[in-house]
C-alpha cells in the first residue's frame, strides 16, 4: 500500500536551535512506528509537524495533504493523543462524548459506550473527579471510537503506573488488530511497546539516526557477548558500541554477518533499548545516562 506519511527535507528551527534538521522519511500504511529519542531530540516537534501544529520548512504530506496547510481536513483522518493529562478537568464525561460526537464526523458513539461499559466511570462526573486510570480509559474510549486511519501518540502513558500503561497498550493493540490503522508512537517506555512495533525511528539532535523495520533488525544488528580472550579479534571488526556486562565486554555490530562473529562469543539480536544507547553513544562522546528504558520524564 502507498505511504501514509511522506516527509521530505523537513527542518524546523526555534530561534538558533535546530529542532529538526533535514528529516526525510516515509511511513507505510498499517505500520506501527515507535518514535524514540532522548528528551529534546525533536520527537514532539516531528509529531507536531505531521499534525500541522507548527510551521516548518520542507514538505510533510499526510494522506497526500500538506500538513501545515490542510490541518483541519487532516484531523478528521488522524487521531492524536498527547499524554492523557490533557483532557480538560472541568468537562463532564457525558459532555465529552457529546462534544466529540458533535465535532467529529468519524466518531462512533456506540463504540465509545461499549468501551466505557467495561469501566467504573460515572457518566455525570467531571473529568477532574476521575482517577488517572479512569481518565486514560475515557480518553482511549473517545479516541478508539474515532475511525481514524492514523493514530498519533505522544508519550500517551506519561505519569501512569505500570498497570494502566499495560492496560493502555493492550487495549490499543487489540483495537489495532480489529481495525486497519497506522500508529505513530513516541515513547520512552521502550520495553513495554517493543513487542507492538513494526518499525523503529530513532531521532537524535533533529536528525534521523535510525529508521528500520523490526524484522530487518537481526540482519542489520548483532550483539556479541565476547568470550574470554577474543576481545581484540572482536574489536577489529569495528563494533559500533561496547559496554561491560558482568565483567564481559558486550559489543554491538552493524552490518556484520553473524557467521563472522559466531566464533567470538555469544551472538544475539540486540533489544531496541540497546540499539538506542549504542546509536546515541556512537555519534558522540558518552553523556550522562540518557536512561532510555523505563525512564520517567
Amino acid at each position, binding site marked *: 500500500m502507498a505511504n501514509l506519511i511522506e516527509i521530505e527535507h523537513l527542518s524546523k528551527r526555534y530561534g538558533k536551535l535546530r529542532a529538526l534538521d533535514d528529516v526525510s522519511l516515509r511511513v507505510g500504511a498499517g505500520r506501527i512506528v515507535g518514535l524514540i529519542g532522548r528528551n529534546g531530540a525533536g520527537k514532539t516537534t516531528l509529531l507536531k509537524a505531521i499534525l500541522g501544529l507548527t510551521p516548518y520548512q520542507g514538505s510533510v504530506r499526510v494522506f497526500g495533504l500538506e500538513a501545515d496547510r490542510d490541518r*483541519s*481536513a487532516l484531523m478528521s483522518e488522524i487521531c*492524536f493523543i*498527547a499524554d492523557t493529562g*490533557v*483532557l480538560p478537568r472541568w468537562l463532564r464525561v457525558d459532555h465529552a462524548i457529546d*462534544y466529540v460526537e*458533535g465535532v*467529529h*464526523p468519524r466518531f462512533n458513539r456506540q463504540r465509545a459506550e461499549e468501551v466505557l461499559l467495561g469501566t467504573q466511570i460515572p457518566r455525570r462526573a467531571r473529568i477532574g473527579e476521575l482517577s488517572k486510570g479512569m481518565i486514560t480509559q475515557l480518553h482511549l474510549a473517545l479516541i478508539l471510537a474515532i475511525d481514524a486511519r492514523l493514530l498519533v501518540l505522544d508519550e500517551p502513558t506519561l505519569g501512569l503506573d505500570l498497570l494502566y500503561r499495560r492496560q493502555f497498550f493492550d487495549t490499543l493493540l487489540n483495537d489495532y488488530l480489529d481495525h486497519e490503522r497506522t500508529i505513530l508512537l513516541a515513547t520512552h517506555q521502550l520495553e513495554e511497546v517493543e513487542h507492538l512495533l513494526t518499525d523503529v525511528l530513532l531521532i537524535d539532535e533533529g536528525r534521523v539516526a535510525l529508521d528500520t523495520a523490526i524484522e530487518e533488525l537481526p540482519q542489520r544488528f548483532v550483539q556479541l557477548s565476547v568470550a574470554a580472550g577474543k576481545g581484540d579479534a572482536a574489536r577489529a571488526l569495528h563494533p559500533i558500541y561496547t559496554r561491560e556486562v558482568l565483567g564481559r565486554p558486550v559489543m554491538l555490530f552493524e552490518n556484520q554477518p553473524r557467521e563472522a562473529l559466531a566464533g567470538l562469543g555469544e551472538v544475539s539480536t540486540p533489544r531496541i533499548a540497546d540499539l538506542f544507547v549504542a546509536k546515541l553513544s556512537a555519534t558522540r562522546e558518552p553523556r550522562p545516562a540518557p536512561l532510555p528504558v523505563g525512564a520517567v520524564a
Partner: protein
Amino acid sequence: MKVLYMQMRRELWEHRSLWIAPLLVGLLMLVAVATVGRIQFYQGPAPGPGPSPASANTPFAQMLLGWGIPFFLVSLIVIVVYLLDCLYGERRDRSILFWRSMPVTDTQTVLAKLLVGLLVVPLAAFLLSASTSLLASAILALRHHVLVNGQVAPLWDGATWVRVQLRVLYSLMVLMLWYAPYGAYLMLASVWARRSPYAWAFVPPVLIAMFENILLGTRYVGGVVERGLNNVLRLAFNLNRQFAYNLGDQLPTPRAVPNGRGVSAFLESPQMWVGLLAAVLMFLLVIRLRRYRDDS
C-alpha cells in the same frame, strides 16, 4: 454549523459563570421584589418643554429600565473575565492539545468564543431581564407595593413594556457593535499571554498612555481609549459624556429613545466603523496566533 454550535456549548460548559451569574441575579431580584417593602417614586412636574410621549417617563418605564441594569452589569463582568480566559485557560491546563486533536479549525474555535462573549451572553441577559421583568411586574402589581407620590400606581402597561424592551434591545446592539473592538482586544490579550492575560490586557495601554504623557506631554492614546469607551453614549443615545459619571441623573429614560438622529449619528460615525475594522483585524490576528500557540 453543527461544529460551531458544539463549540459554543462547550464554552458554556467550561465557563459556567456566564449563565449562572445572570440567572442568580434574576433569582435574587425576583426574591427581592417579592419580599422587600414598598417602592416609592416621587414625580416632580414634567421636566422642561418638549414633545416627550405621555407614557414615556412613567414609574413603570423607569422601573423596567432599572430592572435591566443589574443583568447587564453582571454580564459585562463575566464577559470580560470570560474573554480574558477563553484562549489562555486552554493552554494553562494543556487541554488545548485535546481540542487541537479534533477536526475543528482555529477560525471556528475563535469565532465560537467571540459569538458567545459578544452575542450569546448579552442576548441571553436581555431575554432573562425581559422575562423576569414580566414576573416582577406581576408580583409588584399583586402586592400593590409601588407608590407614586404616595398613591398606589397602576403598574402594568403593555405598550410601555414593549417600547422599553425594544429600547433596551437597540441599546444592546449598539453596545455590542461599539464594544466589539474591546472584546477582540481582550481575546488578543488572552491568546497572547503566556502568563497573566489580565496584565497583558491592562498594563500596556496604561504604560503607553503614561509614557506618551511624560515624553510627549500629550494624552492622545488615553484620549482614544476614553473617548472609545464613552462616545457611544453621546452618539447613539444623545447623551453627554456626563452619563458615565452620573448615572443617577441621566438614566436613559424613554425620553432618550433613539430618534432618527441617534441611530444615524451612530451609523454615520467614523469612529464606530474604525472600531469595527479594528475588531475584525484583531479577530484575524487572534485566529493566526491561536494556530501556533500551544501548551509550551
